């Protein structure tokens, strides 16, 4: 019997090790697997490379993971925000490295890794410093920059509903990077609000097929990042 559901967030993150590349879903307040990130802090892993669209907000989730000293490098598209103080201070103090990637290139590099694609040419970033040192190829009179896939050891993703095979649905704008990160990691860990019986998710509406998922944990009432930032709540 295939059983991907695990009892708690601690056992969900058991496979994460020091030095891993960890993709973390979410865009702003939507879709951050905050409880799984906090489980990484509890576990005490170090020297992670984190792939996320942003670089943490307030003092919880990814910001708390940074503050705990668990992250050596962030690969993201947009590290600046009105509440990204932890990252900004650590970056300026030289305590964390940054690779800034155009958002669509970030998404496609993740997708390419999951799809077994060895790289792709994109019009994005032609003529900008992002293209420095990369191969530029002219295809049908247009210049394209070569980008490579972005693989990960682990993906941490928040979804809405799962079954024991790991089939997933998402909610609203919390979908964002979830489906492609599930594909790109060797080991994908998902927190969901609801777990339903096999067969209760209509096959027509499955967004991430369970083949891309390794572990599922139920977090029925995930914390609101927006509220936690407003209240200056921290972790631990």
């Amino acid at each position, binding site marked *: 019997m295939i059983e991907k559901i695990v009892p708690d967030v601690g056992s969900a993150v058991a496979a994460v090790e020091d030095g891993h590349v960890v993709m973390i879903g979410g*865009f702003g307040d939507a879709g951050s697997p905050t409880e799984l990130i906090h489980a990484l802090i509890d576990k005490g892993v170090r020297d992670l490379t984190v792939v996320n669209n942003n670089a943490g907000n307030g003092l919880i989730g990814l910001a708390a993971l940074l503050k705990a000293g668990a992250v050596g490098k962030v690969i993201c598209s947009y590290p*600046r925000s009105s509440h990204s103080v932890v990252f*900004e201070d650590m970056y300026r103090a030289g305590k964390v490295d940054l690779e800034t990637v*155009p*958002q*669509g*290139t970030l998404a496609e590099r993740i997708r390419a890794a999951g799809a077994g694609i060895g790289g792709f040419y994109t019009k994005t970033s032609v003529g900008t410093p992002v293209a420095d040192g990369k191969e530029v190829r002219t295809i049908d009179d247009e210049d394209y920059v070569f980008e490579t896939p972005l693989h990960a050891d682990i993906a941490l993703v928040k979804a809405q509903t799962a079954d024991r095979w790991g089939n997933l649905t998402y909610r609203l*704008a919390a979908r*964002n990077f979830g*489906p492609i990160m599930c594909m790109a990691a060797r080991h994908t860990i998902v927190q969901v609000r609801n777990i339903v019986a096999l067969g209760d998710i209509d096959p027509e509406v499955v967004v991430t097929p369970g083949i891309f998922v390794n572990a599922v944990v139920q977090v029925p009432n995930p914390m609101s990042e927006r509220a936690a930032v407003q209240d200056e709540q921290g972790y631990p």
Partner: protein
Amino acid sequence: MSAPPKGLNGAQIAWRAAQDIPEGAYVNLGIGLPELVADHVPHGREIVLHSENGLLGVGPTAGPNEADDELINAGKKPITLRAGAALFHHADSFAMIRGGHIDLCVLGAFQVAANGDLANWSTGAPDAIPAIGGAMDLVAGAKRVVVLTKHTTKDGAPKLVDTCSYPLTGRGVVSRIYTDLAVVDIAEGAFVVREILEGLSLDDLAARTGAPLSPAPDIRALAIQKG
């Protein structure tokens, strides 16, 4: 130089830009000033707003009682969905952008050059934190890119320049610029003034612009929302 007339505020610039969006257009609005364009689309004109984080059919800003942490726009602000909306993941969202399916993209700018070069992600300063977001993909893939910006910086330096001194977002990508003082087209590598704030002379505008300007043959007064 005589005391200049007061320029448009942000909402007025957004209103002016919104008047030019054609019926049926798929439109991406950048973070900041461009977000205001959504509030000023002429009544009865049906357009579809795209948000890079996986939404088509973005509706008005959410009121305090309807805000949902999981329904936000690219600027991370709570929004609503209108009838006909669709949800999708990031790779699909940027396939729409890169693949040429977005008719119009409205962005902010640090600098725009007379040849259409755009700089809007980094000042290049040593302690600056570079934040690209979706801007490089949008300028590479949208069918038309327009910019909303104040004509000068807070210190009075021109934002419409001969050559961008900041790192580029894209080369030769901008078609039109809406500012608090004018509507300026980029045509054959030069700034062409289509509309100018009433009471402002072309010389006044040129003094606030970092590259030569020429008037369009049918130059008009800058349109402002009535009432």
